């Protein structure tokens, strides 16, 4: 059973539809007692860091997520769910969950590529250069691209936490992976077949073994 954490940060329909498509059972909840039934937890989210953290603290979910990861169980962060895994976000000057050392930064308004000013948010399809292999990213064509929509990006303090890098004005960490935790800035649920493959891989991942 896959649990999708509902913390009122955007719409979870597309994650749920993607899991249905790959034949995984799931539940969507903000109750930690129900989350206990899960084997895998997906921590999605679209929205602002400040509001999201307030809700997570109020529901005691921030502490619950830390405990889940410390027990060695698999957690996948998506988009905002990735950004607030770090210690701090520049968005709303927010203190975050702190599972991974580092901070979430905003793209500079002055970025250019080949002399052309870049727009923010970074919206659309972009590639990811993977530094090493990882069970959650097996059987993914290196040419594959993924759907991004964000103005902030994760910047882990420890370089070994960086699994994938994407270029948009700067090279930023688009995928981070530490032991049983994997988190990506793009939306696998909206990234076509490669995205579904990532979700499939995650659901089959047994990091404790």
């Amino acid at each position, binding site marked *: 059973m896959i649990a999708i954490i509902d913390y009122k940060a*955007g719409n979870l329909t597309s994650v749920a539809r993607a899991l249905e498509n790959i034949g995984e059972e799931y539940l969507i909840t903000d109750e930690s007692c129900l989350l206990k039934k899960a084997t895998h937890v997906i921590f999605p989210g679209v*929205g602002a860091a400040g509001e999201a953290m307030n809700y997570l603290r109020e529901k005691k979910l921030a502490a619950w997520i830390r405990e889940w990861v410390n027990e060695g169980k698999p957690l996948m962060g998506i988009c905002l769910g990735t950004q607030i895994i770090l210690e701090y976000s520049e968005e709303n000057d927010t203190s975050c969950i702190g599972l991974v050392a580092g901070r979430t930064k905003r793209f500079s308004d002055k970025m250019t590529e080949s002399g052309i000013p870049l727009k923010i*948010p970074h*919206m659309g399809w*972009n590639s990811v250069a993977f530094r090493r292999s990882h069970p959650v990213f097996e059987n993914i064509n290196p040419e594959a691209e993924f*759907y991004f929509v964000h103005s902030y990006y994760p910047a882990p303090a420890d370089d070994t936490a960086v699994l994938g890098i994407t270029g948009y004005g700067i090279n930023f960490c688009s995928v981070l992976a530490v032991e049983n935790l994997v988190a990506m800035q793009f939306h696998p649920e909206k990234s076509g077949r490669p995205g579904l493959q990532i979700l499939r891989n995650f659901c089959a991942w047994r990091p404790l073994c």
Partner: protein
Amino acid sequence: MLSKRIIPCLDVRAGKLTKGIRFKGNVDIGDPVEAAREYYDQGADEIVFYDITASSDERNIMIDVVERVARTIFIPFSVGGGIRNLDDMRKVILAGAEKVSVNSAAVVNPEIITEGAGAFGSQCIVLGMDVKEVEKTKKIPSGYEIVIHGGRKFTGIDALWWAREAERLGAGEICLNSIDADGTQDGYELNLTALISENVHIPVIASGGAGKPEHLAAVLTTGKADAALIASMVHYRTYTIAGIKQYLHEHQIKTRMSW
């Protein structure tokens, strides 16, 4: 590096495509869900559904279409046409669309942009603009005027001013349709597209006039567009999305080539 997006647009009325789309073996497809799947398989980067709605019953049929599309394709898609208030937006987003686009309703009531961005995030809110070239005047300094109700009604609003204003109000993206070029298949309105795209900080989808892959190449370079909307040129199988992407690739325009 970010890829330029190729976005087929499907017109839907009462749950059916308004014109049949010819796919494999020239079979006419009238079901928008089937058409969406076909374009998903061909490498569309996003899909736009435009709901040509006459009644509230038809709106409910559209919500059912959106739900079925969300179970079938796993790329972003947006729904426009007849979105008048926050409740209309909520229904479409909860049914599984990533984005909603507002056009005439935002001209009449610009707060709908701010309300929508506040409730669902700017990335969900696309401003659709229908634009006609006019004489440059004090009131319309850019020489491009916003028209509504399918191009029938001039509003007296300058298109460049409106694009900037929509960004300020919280729109996450602009879908810019040239009424002059629309339906001609003679190419996009490049001057208009470049003017808007260079003067806002949010992505611009060019719309109206696509007939050949060259037109997309021009609007994605000279026109400075971030994405290109296409309709007839793929609906009637004159071109495939994969074929268009191959052409753009050969002309050093980056699109998503693996799907």
